[in-house]
């Protein structure tokens, strides 16, 4: 397949930035770079990555399919990744799932008729402290409620997205306050 020169140069830069015995670690940064450049990682790109990093195709696919931030198809306009792991579920994610399905009129894996939203349930996105949470493209939204969800979706629909939430320490400086 045709890999743009910029990506080839960048891949070498990434690959050689790791010490010789750790070059396998180039896998994830290289995937993100490929995704930035090409929009997604297709099977052809997987082959190229496997060859470039010197790992098996199985390994590339294991990593690619593990991370929800790595995409195998070109991104839809807004990819809504909704966490359904334990912290989010305890904080009411199941009700919110039903709400978002009703609001968008689609179910897991489907895309709205206007092509604007694709909904995907994923595993933990690392935002347990601010559960329930979701990711829209690369924007994180925390402590969701039905009202907040409506606002966010309307924001995207109207072209004036609600700014994403910044992760804030809920307990202040843990080291200072809790250590005994």
């Amino acid at each position, binding site marked *: 397949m045709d890999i743009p020169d910029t990506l080839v140069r960048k891949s070498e830069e990434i690959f050689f930035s790791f010490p010789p015995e750790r070059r396998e670690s180039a896998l994830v940064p290289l995937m993100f770079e490929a995704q930035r450049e090409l929009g997604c990682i297709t*099977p052809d790109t997987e082959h190229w990555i496997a060859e470039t990093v010197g790992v*098996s*195709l*199985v*390994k590339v*696919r*294991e990593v690619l*399919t*593990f991370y929800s931030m790595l995409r195998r198809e070109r991104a839809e306009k807004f990819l809504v990744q909704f966490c359904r792991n334990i912290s989010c579920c305890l904080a009411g994610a199941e009700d919110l799932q039903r709400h978002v399905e009703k609001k968008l009129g689609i179910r897991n894996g489907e895309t709205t008729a206007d092509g604007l939203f694709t909904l995907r349930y994923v*595993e933990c996105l690392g935002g347990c402290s601010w559960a329930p949470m979701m990711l829209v493209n690369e924007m994180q939204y925390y402590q969701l409620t039905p009202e907040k969800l409506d606002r966010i979706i309307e924001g995207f629909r109207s072209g004036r997205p609600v700014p994403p939430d910044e992760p804030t320490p809920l307990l202040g400086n843990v080291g200072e306050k809790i250590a005994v």
Partner: protein
Amino acid sequence: MPHLEINGKPVEVPAGTNLIEAARRLNIEIPHYCYHPGLAVVGSCRMCQVEVELNGRKSIVVGCNTAAADGMKVFNNTEAIHRIRSGVLEFYLQHHPLDCPICDDAGECDLQNYYLLHGLHDSRVELTEKHHKHKVHDVGPTVVLDSERCVLCSRCARFCREIAGVDELGIFEHGGDSELLNVPGRLLENDYAGNVVDLCPVGALTDKDFRFRRRVWYLKRTPSVCTGCSRGCNIYVDWETSRSYKNPQRRIQRLKPRYNRGVNEWWICDRGRYGYHAVDAENRLTAPRTKSDGESEATVDGVLDRAAEKIKAALAKHGPKSVAVIASSSSSNEDLFLLKRLFADELKVHSLDVTLSGEPKGKEDEILMKADVSPNRRGAVEIGVQPWGGGGVAGDDIVASALDGDYEVLIVVHHDLTRMLSQKERNRLGQNCDYILYLGTHENGMCHLADDVIPIAMWAERDATYTNFQGRVQRTWRPFEPRGEALCEWRVWQELGKRLGHSLPAESVAGVFDSIGTVVASFKGLTWEGLPANGIMLTGVSEPAYRKVQSSHPLPAY
């Protein structure tokens, strides 16, 4: 060497032994899915959790990734452990399809076994809510995957990576969507693929060759040795003959590897695993054949009588030079010993060999497979089935001389000479040899060329010993009788000996083996009764250095 207690029973194990293996020594099973002694430890299935007490400190650890320590007290049977395992099991069974009635693994499935030990709960998931995954997924030419039954232990993926040396299976996706699969367009097709079925603790990976053949509880199991190459991997023959309405011809249902640290560890190659079909193949020779005039139906006795007459006449007329024997290194030690006794020692036949340059060769690799596809070449060498004395003629030269008409009698075992000869040469061989006797197992060109044919028993139909390339003498056990009128090769030599006025040592295979032990130097001291199940090295041959196929994986200190 750490001393520890498991369920109150003391045991001493080598340093670095994990708790699952330590418990195994006491015949205590710590349930586990992902752990396998031949593979790297991953500690992912969480079934092997046990309570451990050391220096007054109590904790719950995984048995697979915890090294036994001096003074450790391990508990495998406490209420807490039972609760933990039952919780783990409930997760494993949450989306399990419960299709045991049609699952090949039912009866030898660790989901079933451990559910009886630690489960016995009712499902909290409605049948309609169960997740569905790939159900009948072709992962390769020999194996079928049912993802819904998979517990994601990753044994199969690790086997491919660590032992077979090719990454052919992986666990893809994330969390509840995780699924063991091959990469689209790439198949599980390494030479050892069948082992993933043995490794699978559940019914996720099943063997196409065995799929839906028999319920496993009908199978009978006999230890044996693979005769597919000169390594002689230790195997079990799983066989069943009473349900003849299903494949009446097929007695062996499957082969499974049998652990032997010095030979094959836990594995066998697919060439060996599926090689058993030859035993019950349609072209097996089951009755003697003759070209002799005036005989409507050949009998073994008739053939033996005639062979003895022909040999006697040739010896009387032209001496031992007029007889040649092309024996086979696929024959057992006992066969070759009696053959050598009769032809070399008694009849003084010099033209005697097992090796032909045109013999088929197999693939060889660094894992198990050997290019020499005969299981007993070392045995033939040790016993001395080779040209001897001044007039000794080697295999290829025997064939050449036979074409030139130098022999009155030519005896061939197993080798299909016709595959090494042109049509013209075949005709010449037929014309120039007064009498050709063939001992074989399957229909082939030799059956048509030879004047008389005696069908002989195959490895699975007999008690026998073979000497592998390392010099290890290993025995097989007979699960069932030879097909039709086939008889063990050593019996042919004994019967022929009787007819020629030479009584050969023994009337039973054990007796023949014992006399090898008194006559052949490198077999000195070996007896049939004294043969261990995992074989024994020839006298003066040292056990080869143990080379574990996988890289070593030290356990973390507790």
